[in-house]
């Protein structure tokens, strides 16, 4: 046979069970069989997570594209819609998410230095902050229901676009488009927050049970990447949705 892999030991391999020859690191419960070593496994997981983040960027990107084009097309309606959003709740929620990102990064650091209780603490705080965000979001949604700003048959938009004191009436259909995108984007974001809270609850339980060591905390790291991504999406949603033509 030609160019068999340059391993003179291939005959020797016959004396050992194939699976056993493959695992270089003798004992590491977290190491999956098909990786050569823990480093390779960790690198793979990290790259996988980053690629997943890219898919998320493109996923939201479709909605950002729709938003951008309609904002250009129906600026007045979008500004009028934006002026009906509660900027304070939006800003507070931004702050909540930023603080949660800090607790996440502190959690990763705690995991890295093997401090189990600190880690669990930060994870729990993160989940609580995430829930705070969702509760505030819930209040905002409730307000939209009351004002009939939820797209659909009950939608009613009579507010005008206040442009430096000039009251410009807008086409309710276009305002509905703004609120459609508002609910699609924040709704999809909230869904990611809910998933994130579930994920972090799971991580907190695993951390409490001592699944993670200073050598192995990849799930914490990757969960953290996910959380930061959701944070970044909100960092863009806040100015794009809440801050259109606020200077009245």
């Amino acid at each position, binding site marked *: 046979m030609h160019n068999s892999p340059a391993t003179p030991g291939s005959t020797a391999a016959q004396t050992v069970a194939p699976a056993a020859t493959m695992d270089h690191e003798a004992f590491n419960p977290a190491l999956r069989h098909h990786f050569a070593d823990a480093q390779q496994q960790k690198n793979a997981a990290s790259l996988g997570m980053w690629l997943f983040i890219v898919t998320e960027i493109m996923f939201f990107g479709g909605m950002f594209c729709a938003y951008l084009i309609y904002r250009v097309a*129906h*600026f*007045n309606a979008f500004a009028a819609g934006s002026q009906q959003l509660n900027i304070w709740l939006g800003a507070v929620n931004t702050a909540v998410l930023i603080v949660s990102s800090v607790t996440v990064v502190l959690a990763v650091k705690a995991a890295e230095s093997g401090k189990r209780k600190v880690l669990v603490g930060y994870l729990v705080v993160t989940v609580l902050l995430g829930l705070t965000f969702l509760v505030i979001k819930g209040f905002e949604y409730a307000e939209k229901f009351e004002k009939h700003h939820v797209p659909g048959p009950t939608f009613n938009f009579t507010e005008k676009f206040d442009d430096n004191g000039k009251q*410009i*009436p*807008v*086409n309710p*259909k*276009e305002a509905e488009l703004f609120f459609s995108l508002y609910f699609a984007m924040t709704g999809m974001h909230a869904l990611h927050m809910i998933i994130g809270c579930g994920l972090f609850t799971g991580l907190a339980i695993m951390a409490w049970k001592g699944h993670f060591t200073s050598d192995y905390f990849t799930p914490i790291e990757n969960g953290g990447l996910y959380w930061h991504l959701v944070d970044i999406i909100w960092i863009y949603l806040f100015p794009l949705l809440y801050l259109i033509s606020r200077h009245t």
Partner: protein
Amino acid sequence: MSKYLPLWPDQASTMASQVDLLYIYLLLVAGVMTALIFLAVTVLAIKYRRRPGVAAHQIEGSTILELGWSIIPFFVMLTFFIWGAVIFFQERTPPADATEVYVVAKQWMWKIEHIEGQHEINELHVPTGQNIKLIMTSQDVIHSFYIPAFRLKQDVLPGRYTTLWFKATVPGRYHLFCAEYCGTMHSGMGGDIVVMKPEDYALWMAGGSSTPLAENGRALFSSLGCSTCHRSDVKGRGPDLAGIYDKPVQLDDGRTVIADDNYVRESILDPTAKIVSGFKPVMPAFQGIVTDEQLNALVAYVKSLSQPAQGSAALQNAPATSPGQPEVQ
């Protein structure tokens, strides 16, 4: 060209011969390329078939050769691009003297309104030698107005106008197809383009009495109450519409737009979208109040207010309107 095995479509517009010429050029280039590759593969496969004791001769590649067959095809393709773009530009730039015909598409029929007032369904009569511009919109989903013999096609969208222009050359009956899938009877949404000699066309036009489109529009303009605000004296609350068509309009927010068909249409349906500088957003929206046909009549009327004498049959036929001097009611 057999009736049963058509290999080439009829040529019935000025554009058809141009498109065909480009097509033949592309066919030649593609044909030569295909022949070369097929020939090369066949010859090489036979010539270098396996022979015992003769090993393959390893060749790494050749940068010059590879750059060559990247760059040369690119320049050949550039000729396709330029030629194709030139034709496309002509197809998308209607001449100023074109006679306008309004087309409304719906599932599953074509409704056609001549500016002189003739209505047709699934048929369009046009004279040879005259530039015709179709102003098209759809009542429901996307359709596409396709005349193979003219080599022309344009999607027809709901909510806005798209246009198509042509100059027919050979009298005859040609297929009109809907080329964008639009539901159950998509394949039935066709008809005929009837190209006639100008004298026959004039006869066809004379048959049957009808009110010119702009005249209908004028009636609507007053019955809908538009004329109370859009007037040329200073008391008007809306901008004077005389002479605005196809001219730049200064908007309230500083932008400038051209008052084309789509602008006029949008301003009727959704007046607050683009407010003319110096006016208040007081006009009610007519979305859902006027039909697409009525809208066409209104647009035709607004246009007739800006048209000089030549090239406007509508105006000459409209009794109460004299060219360049819009009436004020």
